[in-house]
Structure formats: C-alpha cells, structure tokens
C-alpha cells in the first residue's frame, strides 16, 4: 500500500504514538553522537545523520542479562529473564543499510538455535525505514547490491518528498497494520516527486568474483599486506549492523550474580584463544582474514547472502584507516 504524509502530520503521529505509551526508538542526539535510542518527543528524531552505532542493538543489545543466580546455604536459585516482557517497539528512521541487516541477523539467530532474546524483540518491533538523500564517500550500499531507498528489512518505507513530508510504502503485514491503525494521518499520494536519493560513488562489486577468490585463497600473501596494520580492536565489528558475535560470562560473587551476553569481535586476540593455550588465529592478519571470509564467503555458503550492507561505519571508525570497500576492490582485481 502506498500513502503520503505531511511533515506536520508525521511529527503529530510520532507524538501520538508516544502519548499512547508506545515505545518509539529512533536516531537521536545522545551526548555528542547520534544513537538509536527511545524518543521522548517527535522533536528528538534526527533524520539527517547516520547513527554512530547500528540498529542491531534494538534486537541484540550491547549487553543483556540472561539469568540471575542466588545461593542460599546449599541451595542455588535461578531466575530466568522472561523474553515475553520485551516491550512492543516502533523503530523509526532506520537507514536502508541498517534495516537490510535485520533479515541477515534473523537467519543467524533462528538457524540451529532459536535465540528467544533476539526473536522475541524482533516479533514485537515494527521497522519504519527512511531512504537516504545524502551520503559520504564511506557509504557503499549500492556496491553490495542495496540502494539508498532499498526497503529490505523495513515494514514501512519513508521516502522524503520535495517540499517536505514523506511517501510511505508498506512492505509487510506489520506495515499494513500500522497504516490501517493510523489511517487518519495518511493521505493518498498526490503525485508529488520524491527528493533525489543519495548517490554513493562506489561501483557495484562483483560479489561472486570476490567469493570465488576467497574460496581458493585461505592462504595468500595478500592477507599480510592488507591486515598487518590492523591493531586488533573490535571497533569495526561493534559499529557493524550485521556483525553478531557475542560472549557469555557470569558476573557477580559466589552468593549471587548474573549471566550476561555481550558483544564480542573476531579482531580480538582472545576471541579464539583456546583453554589449552593454543590460538589458531594467532596473528592479526589471520583474524582480519576471518572477518572478510565470514562476511563474503562463510555467510554466503551457509545462508546465500552477504554479511555486509555497505553502511561504511567500519571505514569511518577504523583506528588505522582500514577500508573494507578498498579491500574488496583489491580482492576483486585479483579474482
């Protein structure tokens, strides 16, 4: 279904949602940076800046409790977190590179094990995407098969109109239901043109050719030249909308504490450190190779898609200027 909404009605709709007690999460200024956080009013919503961290944390938080334990005498009492308590949420202003990562994560979190923490949040969330009208030279969504207006992963897609307001297109039953619930706020499209979309400068990658090279070059001198400079932090993985590795620890004392799940990253030395002391990825280039292999080969082998949506965040935050789009160009030339 296709509708249209004025800027004023859009803001009113947001305030109505909040007034009803609906949890609305979207890009908002938080300290010096923009993050996806719960909005307190429509005016909190930032529509002209890509949030520093991706939207994955709406389903896969930086850190969450899995259970609580308490020891009294010889008895240990465990209490589970009930996933049903996660609130119904409207995620708004989600960039196409972020929204497209959500179905990518769906596949991982519902494959051999159904992760109730991820899936329950996912079931309770409606995603309203927002097409991009500007980009920078770190953006490369169009190089990995997406676009600044790609609706993948969104339940509703907003595209800014010339002169203000948005064209609204539903992409799923959740989106249809949202349009139906708030039908008074929307109007029929009157033919107003949408604003010019962003034009990321990167040429489309031949992902098949890149994968073919990766299939045959687990061992290659190129890994050293590409990744010797990598310092082994987790910044790239942590800001990535599609990276999803995590660790689980028990924190607390003998008397009581919590089991927690939190973000982990393949760039860390500790990531593959075995209890025996052996580390199969003992040097940084091997760890960076895993990052590229996972995104452009292993994930494709298993789920038939790429684990990268071209948001460019890893490029912007890398302490040593490693540019994944540049790395892919280099690999493509070899393939």
């Amino acid at each position, binding site marked *: 279904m296709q509708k249209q909404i004025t800027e004023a009605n859009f803001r009113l709709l947001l305030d109505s949602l909040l007034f009803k007690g609906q949890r609305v999460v979207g890009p908002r200024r938080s*300290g010096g940076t923009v993050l996806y956080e719960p909005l307190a009013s429509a005016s909190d919503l930032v529509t002209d800046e890509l949030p520093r961290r991706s939207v994955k944390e709406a389903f896969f938080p930086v850190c969450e409790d899995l259970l609580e334990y308490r020891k009294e005498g010889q008895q240990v009492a465990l209490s589970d977190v009930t996933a049903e308590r996660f609130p119904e949420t409207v995620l708004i202003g989600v960039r196409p590179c972020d929204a497209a990562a959500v179905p990518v994560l769906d596949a991982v979190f519902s494959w051999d094990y159904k992760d109730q923490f991820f899936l329950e949040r996912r079931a309770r969330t409606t995603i309203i995407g927002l097409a991009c009208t500007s980009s920078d030279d770190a953006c490369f969504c169009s190089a990995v098969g997406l676009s600044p207006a790609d609706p993948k992963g969104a339940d509703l897609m907003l595209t800014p109109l010339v002169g203000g307001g948005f064209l609204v297109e539903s992409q799923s039953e959740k989106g249809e239901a949202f349009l139906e619930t708030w039908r008074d706020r929307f109007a029929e499209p009157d033919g107003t043109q949408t604003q010019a979309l962003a034009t990321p400068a990167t040429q489309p990658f031949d992902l098949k050719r890149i994968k073919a090279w990766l299939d045959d070059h687990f061992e290659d001198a190129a890994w050293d030249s590409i990744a010797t400079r990598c310092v082994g932090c987790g910044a790239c993985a942590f800001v990535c909308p599609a990276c999803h590795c995590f660790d689980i*620890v028990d924190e607390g004392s003998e008397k009581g504490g919590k089991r927690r799940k939190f973000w982990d990253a393949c760039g860390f030395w500790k990531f593959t450190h075995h209890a025996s002391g052996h580390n199969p990825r003992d040097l940084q280039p091997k760890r960076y190779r895993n990052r590229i292999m996972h995104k452009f080969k292993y994930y494709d082998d298993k789920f038939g898609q790429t684990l990268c949506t071209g948001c460019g965040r890893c490029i912007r935050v890398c302490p040593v200027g490693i540019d994944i789009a*540049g790395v892919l160009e280099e690999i493509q030339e070899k393939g």
Partner: protein
Amino acid sequence: MQSDTVDTSCHAAIAEAVRTEARRILSDGTVTAVIGYAASRRKGSTQPIVITSVDDADKLIFSAACVNNLAVYLTKAKKDVPRSGRIGVVVKSCDLKALVGLMGEAQLKREDLYLIGIPCTGVLGSVLQPAALLTTASIASKCCECTDRLPPGCDFVPSVQLPQQPRLEQRYTDEIARLEAMSPAERWEYWKEQFSKCIKCYACRQVCPFCFCEQCLCDRNRPQMVEQTPRPAGNTAWHLVRAMHLAGRCAGCAECERVCPMDIPLNLLNRKMARELKELFNSEAGFEVRDKGPLNSYQDDDDQSFIR
C-alpha cells in the same frame, strides 16, 4: 571563536623528503623496513603502511590526516609487523615521546630504529571526514598545546620552514580547569556519564603504545579481575585502571581519544594525571630516555601527603 585556516603548504615538501629518505635508507641497507603513511581509498584518507622495497617508497605521503602514532607497530603487542634489522619509522613529536618512553621501559633500542621526524603543523582531531581542511577548529586538541613542533634527536628531519601558527585555544587546560571547579560529586557524575558510553571495543588499548602487556588485566578470566561486560562497573574499572597504568608514562599522543567510537575524552584523564605527576614528582614525558619512571622508583623527598 572564529575558525582560521592552518597553513599546511609545507606538507608537499615534507612528503617528498620522506620518500627520498626512505628510498635512500632502504636501498643502502640502513633499514629493512620503513613504517609510514600511505593514501587510502577515501578522498584525503590515510593509513599506516610498512614498506620493505624501494619501489614502494613512492606510496609514502604526509598530510594533516596522518594522525596515527606509528610507534604502536614497534610494540610487542604488534608482533606480526616484520621486525628484523633496523626499522625506519615516521614520527611526529608526540609520537617520538612515546618511542622514548618505550626505550626507557626496555621495549626498544635506539640503535634498532631510524627516526624520520616530521616538522609538524598539527593534524586533524578526527578523520571521520579525512578531507577536511586543517583549521583552528578541526585541529587535534593535543596540537593546541604542543610546544615541540620539531622532533629532536631524529636521524632525519625534512628541512622546511614551519609557518607561523594561528592562535589556538588550550582545550585540555580549559576543560581540566572546568572540571576542577566542580564538586567531587559533580565530577563523578561527569565521568560516570562518559564511561557509560563505553562499548568495550578496546580501540583505546589497541592503539596505545604503552598498552603492550601480553595479557591485559581486563582479558583475565581465571580469576576475572575486572567485569568484562560493557556496563558501568566494568567500564569505570577499565578506564581507571588504564589511567593509573598510564600515569607518568602517557606521552600525550591522544590516540586513545581519537579512536574512541563513542567520543569519550580519554586524553583528558591522561592530561590530568600527567599534571598530577608533574606537580608531585616533577616528572613528565619528554625526549630523554629515562630508565625509571616516577611511579616505579622511590626518593626520600617524594610527596607522602597521601599517607594519613
């Protein structure tokens, strides 16, 4: 404050001189490798590069986006960077102080290095937009308070005329004064908020030349020393452990602050600690190799007022 452009016209001559020198020392066998900066894909962006052949010397560049402290590649935390024979390394003054500190801590020997010093007009505070013009607003905070634009004691420094620098705000000094004027409770609130932003990506640790421990306290899990999860308790413990470990050692390169994806002002803590060490022990990071730091040596006249 109105933002003025910083004159960076000497960068082209610096880059050319670095390339010529790298070619010379690689071809005559003075060094086996040179660690410097190369251009990256995005307009204006740069990345560290290790070159071992004369042909690659043309890749070396210098610009205001050459922000990295390359000393990190000479630490044992970066074991995979080829390190046989003498290594050439491009250094700004702040980076050189870190190398000098590492020599004092027996991590490096001066004779194993060939130092290519950069006459420095300052670098960008952030490379989120690497092609940004260097101005009094975009310049790194560390550069605003730098008094060592020419690195001393290097094997080679391009001879260029450094331009007059425009007036710069002393951002750390001002911010430390603002925080010191607060009550301890207000100051605690400020840092609690800053640390709450931490996502434990450890980029601060990984770029720090002084974070060369083979096993970081924060990675220990038998027993666990510091909560590993990115929550207030563990975050605060991590940043305080780091500030204390760096007290009297931090050379002020500010890499920790630059690379923080959550914009935590980490070098502010380091500058405050450096100031404490200067006041208490008359000790500060400089260009002279010292084999004893203020916190690992004892003198009769050390301040003992903290013992009550």
